[in-house]
């Protein structure tokens, strides 16, 4: 069995916090019972947050905000999600990724932008859970950020617990083997679909 994903890397700095990903003033926007309208609200809020707060923090790679803005306009023009600018892309970051609040919108926004995985030196726990729950891959591994530059292609192999840089041919073995439940949840499409299958062991 193998579960692999491959995607283009965006190399972030450290201390990406949840206020930067999704500012407080947007928390109450969006109707959660209308998924399509909700996605549009969340991507707009996150774009606004990252392009103002993130710009000041200077911990995002060049070109990322421009790519986000293409995704926002993609949603406005009803472009198919599979064809969006960041579909399947991978964030590689330094320490403290997702530090702060439990606001799930921070993780949702990255998923709605198309981000498939967040690989970082350290990831804060609530963000880590939220991202897996929303069918993303979150991996914290010391030393991972120095392997990548923006534009590289990363491959994440969940079963072998190894991350490859296909561009420079480097790889890093994860210190901890991912629990099989995480892989099962990923294959089911996230926590709620996993839960609805009722074959899970976690809950």
């Amino acid at each position, binding site marked *: 069995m193998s579960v692999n994903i491959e995607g283009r890397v965006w190399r972030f700095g450290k201390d990406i916090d949840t206020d930067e990903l999704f500012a407080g003033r947007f928390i109450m926007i969006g109707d959660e019972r209308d998924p399509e309208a909700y996605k549009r609200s969340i991507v707009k809020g996150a774009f606004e947050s990252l392009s103002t707060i993130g710009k000041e923090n200077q911990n995002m790679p060049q070109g990322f905000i421009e790519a986000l803005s293409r995704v926002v306009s993609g949603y406005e023009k009803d472009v198919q999600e599979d064809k969006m600018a960041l579909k399947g892309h991978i964030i590689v970051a330094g320490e403290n990724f997702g*530090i702060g609040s*439990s606001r799930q919108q921070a993780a949702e926004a990255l998923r709605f932008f198309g981000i498939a995985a967040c690989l970082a030196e350290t990831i804060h726990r609530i963000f880590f859970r939220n991202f897996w729950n929303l069918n993303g891959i979150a991996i914290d591994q010391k030393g991972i950020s120095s392997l990548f530059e923006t534009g590289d292609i990363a491959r994440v192999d969940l079963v072998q617990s190894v991350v490859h840089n296909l561009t420079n041919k480097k790889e890093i073995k994860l210190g901890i083997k991912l*629990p099989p439940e995480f892989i099962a949840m990923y294959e089911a499409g996230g*926590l*709620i679909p996993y839960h609805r299958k009722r074959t899970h062991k976690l809950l």
Partner: protein
Amino acid sequence: MGMTIAEKILASKAKRDKVVPGEIVTVDVDLAMTHDALGAHTIAKFKELVGEKGKVWAKDKIVIILDHYVPSNTTETAKKVQKIESFVKEQQLTNYHGIGRGGICHKVLLEKGYVVPGDLVTGTDSHTTTHGVMGAFAIGLGVDDMACIWKTGRTWERVPETVLVEVNGKLGEGIYSKDLMLRILNVLGVDGAIQRSLQFTGETVYSLSIDSRSVLTNMAIEAGATNGIIDPDEKVVQYLKGRTKKEYHIIYGDTDASFERHVKIDASSIQEPLVAAPWNPANVKSVSELKGVRINQAFVGSCTNGRFEDLQTVAQILKGHKVAPNCRLIIIPASQEVFEKAAENGLFKIFIESDAFVSGPTCGPCMETHMGILGPEDVMISSANRNFRGRVGDPTAKIFLASPATVAASAIAGEITDPRKYLR
């Protein structure tokens, strides 16, 4: 080898004799809290999970408290509150605290005796770690996790390694548990206890009131901790008298428990009040290093420091003084109970005479919700818990975190100021 209190609670809730750090366990949940900020979101996910007619696992173990956007600031908020209220009715939830009937969720959970020793507490708020002050294992979660808890009464958790912080020695005059926690954060860093159980012990910790101790567990999340926790003592039992009807069995950590790291801090080495400077709570300086930093907003409140003893200290400092002309001071009691006690004790008269703005209980300008939001280049000193860029509005606004005493003294001076001269 014995287990820490966190490990023992997780073992008990997993119905196991023993758990070891690193393993993933499925645990029974005793309390599931959400608030206005993520309540409607959780309800939507719950309905997605169970369908329109599904019922929650236990209508008396769910608590919903309105606190972030109180009273409603926009029609968006008002609609979400309506969804919450109709869900409370539909599911016949017994623990709902609307406007005027509660306050900030973490203060209300403690005051109303919702949390007892040995509990496993969950909340859709990162500061749910607060409740470890009662000897409970308390964790923050997102809404998908909470929706699953509402259905099953269970969740999973990775058994965390424990970082033990032992504090001995006497806190000096004008030095409070907030200063102590800032020192601890400075020692640990913002990921110093990442995915760990952060346990506090030592004579200094046990000398503090429950309210003061809760600052430590509240801000455990600022070191990245899974949970913050303190082995309960007699003060916990006394605190719960008259507050809770729940029966409980206290769980203590074993004396031969092992810790991943044991950090010792001498409280008497904190020679002056501390302040966290932008842009994270571990970027801690002594108050004298920041002397002369002009501020134009000061805030006393939040789940960290909006307690009655905080307001008493603030009143002691403000009495006979005015807030500096170029500064505004916002004081927000954390709960209706604190609000009432402050009124009874004449604190509001002192606040009003000093030109402070006082509001009913709400999270206020701890974050960018609906009041006290900062404009470009504004500088706020705050008794809350986070100072990330953009946390309370414009990304160029700066936030400094300090004890309520330092906040009050700084409001009088219009610049960051040592509170001790006002206490003598």
